[in-house]
């Protein structure tokens, strides 16, 4: 393969490749995943993922995992409290702050402490390339997988089902009425994540310089994936079903034309 990948697989993956490392969502410390793993299930040469914003009780419980955690290769996290606890352990610290890493200024600041960071997927291809050019350490690009738009601490699906006395579900698909934009929601007891109904395909960024790894999330796939075969197709730009390029070609604005501003 031409590129290096960090992959969230559909199961504990035993096949090793020079160009692939694995990342596993840690049970009780993640939201938005269909598969999560106990710490002792996760291989020592793999990375551990903690993407919850942790309340005080949860982070105190997390502290008890530190001795085992120190034997893993690295950790990716959203909550800076996790960094504060793991910074002295011999493992790689990588910040995956979903929507906060949108400039080289921000990213280079985080790189004072972190071994690497994941660029937020909320910016354009040009912005990503500019950040890669300026970043002081190699960084990660989220290149394929569910595109997260919102993380709520609330159990939105359970609340919805209970209000209308419907069967309770942990996954759901909804469509916004005006724009007909579709979303996919996953909930667990720690909150709900809203994703795009389509899967991010960011292959337009493959082959860039200063990349620590391309991040790929296959957790949502229903069938087992042969990683090597899948990556061959991926790199050869074989069309993938139900994908979106997200914000890569969609520059957002934040000021409305004067006539549209509500006062």
């Amino acid at each position, binding site marked *: 393969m031409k590129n290096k990948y960090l992959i969230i697989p559909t199961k504990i993956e035993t096949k090793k490749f020079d160009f692939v490392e694995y990342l596993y969502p840690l049970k009780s410390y993640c939201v938005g995943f269909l598969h999560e793993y106990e710490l002792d299930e996760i291989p020592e040469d793999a990375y551990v993922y903690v993407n919850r914003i942790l309340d005080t009780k949860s982070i105190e419980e997390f502290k008890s995992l530190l001795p085992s955690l120190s034997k893993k290769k690295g950790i990716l996290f959203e909550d*800076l*409290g996790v960094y504060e606890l793991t910074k002295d352990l011999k493992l790689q610290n990588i910040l995956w702050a979903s929507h906060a890493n949108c*400039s080289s200024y921000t990213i280079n600041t985080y790189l004072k402490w972190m071994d690497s960071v994941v660029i937020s997927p909320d910016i354009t291809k040009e912005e990503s390339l500019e950040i890669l050019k300026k970043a002081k350490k190699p960084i990660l690009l989220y290149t394929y997988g569910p595109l997260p738009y919102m993380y709520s601490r609330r159990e939105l699906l359970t609340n919805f089902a209970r209000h209308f006395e419907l069967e309770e579900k942990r996954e759901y698909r909804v469509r916004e009425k005006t724009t007909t934009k579709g979303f996919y929601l996953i909930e667990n007891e720690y909150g709900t994540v809203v994703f795009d109904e389509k899967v991010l395909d960011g292959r337009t960024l493959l082959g860039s310089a200063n990349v620590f790894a391309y991040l790929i999330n296959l957790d949502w796939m229903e069938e087992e994936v042969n990683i090597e075969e899948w990556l061959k197709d991926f790199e050869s730009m074989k069309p993938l079903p139900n994908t979106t390029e997200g*914000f890569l070609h969609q520059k957002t604005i*934040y000021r409305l034309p004067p006539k549209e501003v509500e006062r």
Partner: protein
Amino acid sequence: MIELLAPAGDLEKLKFALHYGADAVYIGGQNFSLRANAKNFSIPEIKEGVEYAHENHKKVYVTVNIILHEEDEEGLISYLKSLSEIGVDAVIVSDIYIVNLIHEMNIPLEVHLSTQASVLNPYAALFYKSLGVTRIVLARESSREDIKKIKEATGLELECFIHGAMCTSISGRCVLSNVTTNRDANRGGCAQICRWTFDTDDQTFSMTSKDLNMIPYIKDMIDIGVNSFKVEGRMRGIYYIATVILTYRTLIDKILDGTITKEDTEYALKILNRCANRDSTPQFYNGLPTEKEQYFLGREESSNQDFLGLVLDYDKEEKLAKVEQRNYFKVGDVVEFFGPQTETFTYTIHTIKNEQKESVSIANHPGEIMYLPVDQILDKFDMMRLKIFDKQ
């Protein structure tokens, strides 16, 4: 230190918020701040606001809380230096670059960490403390236990939201607006998609949160170490700000001097519930919100037209109030006057005179100047509202 902190979308609101009892206000500049589509403050307006506040021994905090994109950094350093020169009392910051920049460049600005940074545990708070942050605006998802433990472990000043709208998302963890309307939520363009409705196979889906209201827990929050009690709403009008701030001011003062009663709390709840256009609850303070803390089937919001008039002047000799009309009122209406120095009292409108001092029976033009004979002395900027209920 116990501080009541009010939102202010412009200079008029800043003055009303401070006049009605806020110890400090938070405002947004025209750049680097969320609520990009509020009027917001130019540098000269910030200076005027700070001077006004300081003359009244109060404080002004300026939000510099966008998440930067590559193009947004230009002008940031000179903007921060301007804020420092003006003498703002603190900046409220979210992006780590800005937090660290102020720290490393020794820009004389106190830094408060925005709720957009989602601090919910002591270790995250300690990370920011090491960068010179003196106050944390906690995530709105903080429970009583989180607040208590963070205070004990860090000794930092803690600021908590006590009233107003809630994001459905953990603040800062949402780009639904970006994808649905192309408006960047984390740079001030949020279109509040969490208040929209969605089609499903079963039923119309909604994820809208009811508002926050911490009236029953203010004393407990003081006891566990909260320093600053923050009201949401930089886009809100002066009647909302005046009513909410005066209600919390009265409550906090009574808690601090030990005269608070159950009736005071119940009355405060009634006033705030009437003033708001959505239901409100304590949300995360004592546990995870359930379906009862959300709205389903759309917004279910009601427009409030209780604000009838603003007192512009009072002639003590003629006992005549000069009132600027804000909503329809007529002879025979039973209303209330209230203000920071005016104990709320009931008044029945027997006579209305227009600007030419001619008797009229109705006031139905917004902004129209009217005169009302009122025996009780009123102050400039007192307000007249529809009377709905008595304090029991």
